[in-house]
């Protein structure tokens, strides 16, 4: 069975600083990987996804993530954080279950941005 680990429960950064959120996955085949963001009181919104091709993927809001098969990682990065980026971030791996594709989510990383 697949699993996702987000080792950081909380991350605090200053506005304008760079950001990296870690994600490690466990899956036997080629994974489908996602990063979602959840603003307070809202549902999840897709930031970016990877399922083939270029291992560096660009997403919305200036985020990017790099798939590293050798490290089973899919870390999320942003060069300069804005106060509006304060939110909960979830990494997910998608796997086939019968005829459907069922994602497994990490526990999330809460991003706090200091002015």
């Amino acid at each position: 069975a697949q699993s996702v680990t987000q080792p950081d429960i909380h991350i605090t950064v200053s506005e304008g600083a760079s950001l990296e959120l870690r994600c490690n996955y466990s899956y036997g085949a080629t994974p489908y990987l996602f990063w979602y963001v959840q603003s307070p009181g809202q549902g999840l919104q897709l930031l970016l996804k990877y399922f083939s091709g270029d291992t560096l993927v660009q997403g919305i809001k200036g985020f990017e993530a790099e798939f590293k098969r050798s490290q089973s990682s899919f870390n999320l990065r942003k060069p300069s954080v804005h106060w509006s980026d304060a939110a909960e971030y979830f990494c997910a791996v998608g796997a086939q279950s019968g005829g459907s594709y069922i994602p497994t989510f990490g526990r999330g990383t809460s991003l706090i941005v200091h002015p």
Partner: protein
Amino acid sequence: DVKVTQSSRYLVKRTGEKVFLECVQDMDHENMFWYRQDPGLGLRLIYFSYDVKMKEKGDIPEGYSVSREKKERFSLILESASTNQTSMYLCASTPPIRGVEQYFGPGTRLTVT
């Protein structure tokens, strides 16, 4: 624009009540999901459905049931609400296509007193 709606943003119920949470999507997606979200635990899958009248248990189905009578609507039912079911409930949908992301509703924050 893609849309998943949930019937209530906030709900307060008493222990033992029967609770219905409704989710509607307008994207003609085959797959629909119910999750609960608790601090530090992330999203845990309760049930999912891959077609009308079809359902599969997720990781934490105990105390819940679901209904899918129409493709666009997926209901979560708490037969007898308990305080440990106080949580945020998220609905999502997706087509059964490899690599496609889920679309989420805004969530229902349920409090059982």
